[in-house]
């Protein structure tokens, strides 16, 4: 039945990035059997090469016509997100190799599970159907459960993984229940199908509101919004540091990709109903993340709470519901990839096998002993705090401007307030580094080549997005435009 097959539009050119990435991951899986334990970093370098090869393919895969029976929609939006995922995966793998050696966890599985997690994110970003979305989400989540627990001999690692797993699976279940009601309401699981039916039917349908509330709760867990955040600090602290960085950047970006696609593309007719819920979620998340981060002693936990606060700001971009706000999320995630993974790179480099380097107090006097590290960490922290001329400032500026434009004055005020609070704990680390003497300057590790590459690239990214944001914002606006037509 050729005509039926044509209707499915099995257009393989829309999934080339996924196909290549899977092939790379499976090659590494097979090679893992032949590579000795001491040489597992070879697999890391191969993963980096594979990921770098996929980046141009992903950037060029733009074919907005739904393919594979309406499952896949490889538009500019998904291309933008795929590039973010791949860049963050490259940085993660680059800083992982030395870390794995240092911590004596030389496992090849680590590298291909990172690639599979990236694959799951890419499936999510281009999903045009709840089936595809859910399957991609679970592919990512299951890879992350294993990655977080990969230090199987470490109590914190498996404990964090267990909490992450239980709450992750609970959120999947809630999301699934919401999807079931969305399907029951509209008779289809396709996002474009729901959009076309939604505008015809009464926007008062209680079932749809129910579906929306459940889907928001499900996604709220994934982006670690308050009050659904409780897994994230434990998971970040227990996970290998590079995985924590990847979790905070990649998994958050993927969750926001589906958040934007589901709410802006599939439920635009019900904007009035979900906006209030998101308002509360966004305000509470921003304030809670910033306030609790102040009292943290462990730098990874501090960054986990900071990441919660950042998710709140991004939610603000979603609820203003216009092209500038949504493009602001895309831009913010790009900047966040650079600044957050940069910060995690410095921490990964600094942390020692016995756990030294994870407490804030370990950073005392770092500037005197290793001025370059302190400079990089200070740059990334200032960017995370939103100080010009870094990318963090422009990103926050775009979203706050969009919120003010759309007359969400109170929410914007809460956003500014939370930024001011957040300044305290970022400045505290910088203060520790620059204003103290160091006792044990001699036993600090040296900066490896992979770290230098990551730090230079992330620093360049952080600064360029800060001083010259226009081209990036233009791309973000261009890919988001079709959603608001």
């Amino acid at each position, binding site marked *: 039945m050729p005509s039926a097959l044509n209707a499915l539009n099995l257009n393989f050119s829309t999934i080339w990035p996924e196909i290549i990435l899977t092939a790379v991951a499976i090659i590494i899986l097979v090679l893992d059997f032949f590579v000795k334990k001491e040489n597992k970093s070879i697999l890391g370098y191969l993963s980096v090469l594979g990921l770098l090869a996929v980046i141009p393919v992903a950037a060029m895969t733009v074919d907005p016509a739904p393919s594979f029976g*309406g499952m896949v929609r490889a538009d500019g939006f998904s291309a933008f997100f795929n590039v973010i995922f791949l860049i963050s995966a490259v940085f993660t793998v680059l800083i992982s190799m030395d870390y794995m050696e240092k911590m004596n966890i030389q496992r090849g599985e680590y590298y291909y599970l990172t690639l*599979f997690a990236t*694959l799951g994110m890419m499936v999510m970003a281009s999903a045009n159907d709840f089936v*595809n979305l859910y399957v991609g989400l679970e592919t990512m989540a299951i*890879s992350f459960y294993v990655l977080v627990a990969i230090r199987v001999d470490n109590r914190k690692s498996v404990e964090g993984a267990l909490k992450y797993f239980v709450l992750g699976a609970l959120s999947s279940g809630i999301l699934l229940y919401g999807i079931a009601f969305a399907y029951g*309401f*509209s*008779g289809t699981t396709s996002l474009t199908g729901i959009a076309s039916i939604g505008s015809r039917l009464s926007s008062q349908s209680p079932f749809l509101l129910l579906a929306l509330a459940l889907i928001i709760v499900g996604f709220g867990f994934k982006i670690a919004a308050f009050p659904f955040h409780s897994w994230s600090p434990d998971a970040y602290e227990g996970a290998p540091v590079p995985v924590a960085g990847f979790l905070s950047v990649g998994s958050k970006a993927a969750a926001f990709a589906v958040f934007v696609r589901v709410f802006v593309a599939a439920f635009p007719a019900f904007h009035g109903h979900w906006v209030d819920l998101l308002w509360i979620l966004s305000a509470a998340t921003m304030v809670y993340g910033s306030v609790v981060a102040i009292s943290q002693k462990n730098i990874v936990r501090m960054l986990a709470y900071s990441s919660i606060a950042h998710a709140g700001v991004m939610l603000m971009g979603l609820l203003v519901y216009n092209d500038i706000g949504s493009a602001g999320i895309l831009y913010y995630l790009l900047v966040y990839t650079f600044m957050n993974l940069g910060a995690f790179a410095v921490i990964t480099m600094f942390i020692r096998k016995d756990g030294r380097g994870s407490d804030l107090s370990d950073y005392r006097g770092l500037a005197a002993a290793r001025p370059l590290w302190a400079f990089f960490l200070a740059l990334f922290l200032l960017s995370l705090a939103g100080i010009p001329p870094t990318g963090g400032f422009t990103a926050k500026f775009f979203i706050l401007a969009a919120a003010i434009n759309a007359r969400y004055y109170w929410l914007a005020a809460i956003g500014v307030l939370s930024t001011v609070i957040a300044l305290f704990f970022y400045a505290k680390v910088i203060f520790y580094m620059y204003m103290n003497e160091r006792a044990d300057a001699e036993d600090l590790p040296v900066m490896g080549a992979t770290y230098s590459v990551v730090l230079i690239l992330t620093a360049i990214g952080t600064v360029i997005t800060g001083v010259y944001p226009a081209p990036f914002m233009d791309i973000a606006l261009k890919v988001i435009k079709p959603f608001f037509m």
Partner: protein
Amino acid sequence: MEQIPFFIFAAIAVLSAIGVISVKNAVHGAFYLMITLLQVAAIFILLRSPFLAAVQVFIYVGAVMVLFLFAVMVLDIGKEELRETFNQQGVIAIPAVLVMLALIGYMIIGGKVLAPAGNLTDDVLIGNSTEVLGKELYTKYLFPFEVVSILLLIALVGAIVLVMKDRKR
């Protein structure tokens, strides 16, 4: 006509589900869960989906429950004493969850579904839904089907990574 079996299955399912979350012994919980899962399979038959019922029995009652029992037995945690107080993890989320559950209950009992009908006729569903389902899986749902195969590979590798002791250590 179908009401009587439905109520029987539903009542057993709900009661044994309550059993799952209220027993002290995890082995008993596993058996209660197995009863619930079997009732769900029966519900699938009432919904004219024999394929789902078969899959439910094979995968849930067959594979998943064996995994559960295996874990309970291997870890020897069946008879563990449990102080039944509050689980600290969920405290913050509980109010939100309660509001949500109340909302859902209110809407299901009071609401109506405003959905347009699909394009399948009754006899397709009753006659050979399995055949139609199979065709859909390999045509329209080809892409997620392939992704799920990778997901199973990840789960396989992941379980081995987490459980197998390092040979060289």
